């Protein structure tokens, strides 16, 4: 790895750590300063002031704020995100159970959206003008303008409720046994449940790669080196695929990585519509139920994923673009 890249890597890592720390601290502050008494969830007929004090103590909530903060950071670094108020289990466990579901949903949706979007975008760049372009562009913009959960509602009604082709929610059929991630990945039932939420997300996410690919292709196709390629008598295929596409893909690839990060948080509504047991839904339920440790943990995890992916996207772009990775040498 050359000097420029090494420098960049170091810079980015330092930046990453700073933002992670800032976000985690922000989460801590937000949740600590929240109104409402978490012990309200545990009120029983024998609830006394002592019980309440004991509860507060067991949650570490009776210590001064700055002490709580240090414990919080220390625990975070050790991977201890506290215990869920409502479910009584370690937050980390709950998160790790839900995380794979979100990851699978995100990766599949994004993958489909980008695969289709890139091809369609390149195709549109090729065929300028005409009815296709006049229809496709507004359509792509429209899918980006629609609330994802609404798209989900449309698909749910049309393809599940009214026709029964697909399940109406969840990641597994009722009564199905609890299975590990690996088992899930090869389970037909799992994928059958995945189709609608993934399709919804893919539809929503499609617009960006399509429009971006088209735009960058158009830019690249008008570049001088494409004219040169024609002068060299190269085949159209060679020109488009080898030169134009490779140049145009760089920003799109970066967008993909950024999209991964953003999606993990944005999946919240889709997971809720379909009852998909991912981190997003976990967050929503935790917030609605005032389960602060769980909500906080989910929030931090989602934010961490976002920042991590952003950093990776940055680095990947630098590594892929020879103008950055190789630098100038005279």
């Amino acid at each position, binding site marked *: 790895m050359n000097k420029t890249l090494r420098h960049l890597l170091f810079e980015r890592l330092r930046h990453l750590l700073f933002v992670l720390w800032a976000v985690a601290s922000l989460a801590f502050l937000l949740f600590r300063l929240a109104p409402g008494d978490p012990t309200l969830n545990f009120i029983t007929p024998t609830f006394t002031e002592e019980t309440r004090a004991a509860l507060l103590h067991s949650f570490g909530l009776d210590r001064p704020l700055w002490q709580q903060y240090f414990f919080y950071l220390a625990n975070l670094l050790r991977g201890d995100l506290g215990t869920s108020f409502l479910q009584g289990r370690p937050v980390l466990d709950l998160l790790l159970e839900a995380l794979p579901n979100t990851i699978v949903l995100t990766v599949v949706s994004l993958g489909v959206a980008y695969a289709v979007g890139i091809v369609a975008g390149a195709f549109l760049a090729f065929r300028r003008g005409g009815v296709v372009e006049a229809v496709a562009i507004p359509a792509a913009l429209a899918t980006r*303008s629609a*609330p994802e*959960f609404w798209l989900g509602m449309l698909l749910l*009604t049309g393809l599940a409720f009214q026709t029964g082709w697909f399940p109406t929610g969840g990641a597994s059929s009722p009564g199905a046994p609890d299975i590990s991630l690996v088992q899930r990945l090869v389970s037909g039932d799992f994928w059958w449940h995945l189709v609608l939420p993934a399709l919804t997300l893919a539809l929503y996410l499609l617009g960006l790669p399509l429009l971006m690919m088209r735009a960058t292709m158009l830019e690249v196709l008008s570049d001088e080196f494409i004219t040169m390629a024609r002068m060299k008598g190269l085949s159209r295929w060679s020109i488009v695929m080898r030169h134009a596409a490779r140049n145009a893909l760089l920003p799109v690839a970066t967008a993909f990585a950024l999209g991964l990060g953003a999606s993990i*948080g944005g999946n919240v*509504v889709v997971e809720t*519509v379909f009852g998909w047991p991912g981190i997003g839904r976990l967050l929503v339920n935790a*917030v609605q139920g005032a389960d602060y440790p769980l909500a906080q943990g989910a929030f931090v995890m989602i934010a961490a994923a976002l920042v991590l992916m952003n950093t990776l996207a940055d680095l990947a772009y630098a590594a892929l673009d020879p103008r950055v990775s190789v630098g100038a040498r005279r």
Partner: protein
Amino acid sequence: MRGVRALFRLLRSEPFAAVGAAIYAVIALVAALAPVLAPHDPQEILRTGRRVARYMPVSPDYWLGTTSSGRDVLSQVIFGTRAALLVGLTAAVAVVAIGTVLGLLSGYLGGWVDRLVSKLADVVLGLPFLPSMLVLAALTRPGTTVIITSVAVLLWPNTARVIRAQVLSLRERSWVDAARMTGCSPGRIMFVHVLPQVLPLAALYGSVAIGWAILAEASASFLGFGDPATVSWGVMLQEAYANQALSRGAWNWFVPPGIAIVLMVLAGFLISRGSEKLLFPKLAEQ
């Protein structure tokens, strides 16, 4: 006057921007004339005879049918324009205001101001939008105010970055130098001289921000963090979902508000796409 004429020329040559502007105009019109246009009061529970008119299908009496609690869907959609405009415009103005001021300050003043704003932007960009808004809504009080605040507080970095870049290039222009040499204070230079130059760019982001704000309101309402007392498209969708409209196939209930949202957000995108040519002619030459 020149600006207005340029505007009309733009609308004629850019079909996208024209459509976007037309959509906004229609929505604004509907919002203004809502009481006249809507056949019923959106909150009124309608009855046929003595029974509540629940889940009525599309008919001459109820053009878009009724909800599970007997309210007229069409009227709700019409009155929904008001909430949409309110949230959209307020949030857009807020985002653009914050983003522009911060971008202006960090771009023009540089130094520690720039560093501070940049660091702040980095942290904010590390926050996932929807989860953050949810958390804020849950921790304060759900409603329109927190939605608008969230949009303003979470979405300003992109605007700020772009404004900053433009300010950096403007700073080196000769007329800024001239202003400096005649002893203008930095504040005056920034807000009287530089600000007007970056406003078109800010407006561009504003039109897209409207869309983001409306989508944010819809999502927040859908998750139960909206204001159930207001008539908004997001609340309509949430009610539909919660009241089995999906399993009942009540398309007439949840499709229209969705389409309304799509149109309004789309308009923002279209206008920003079309305006690029007006504001940045050099870019368009490519």
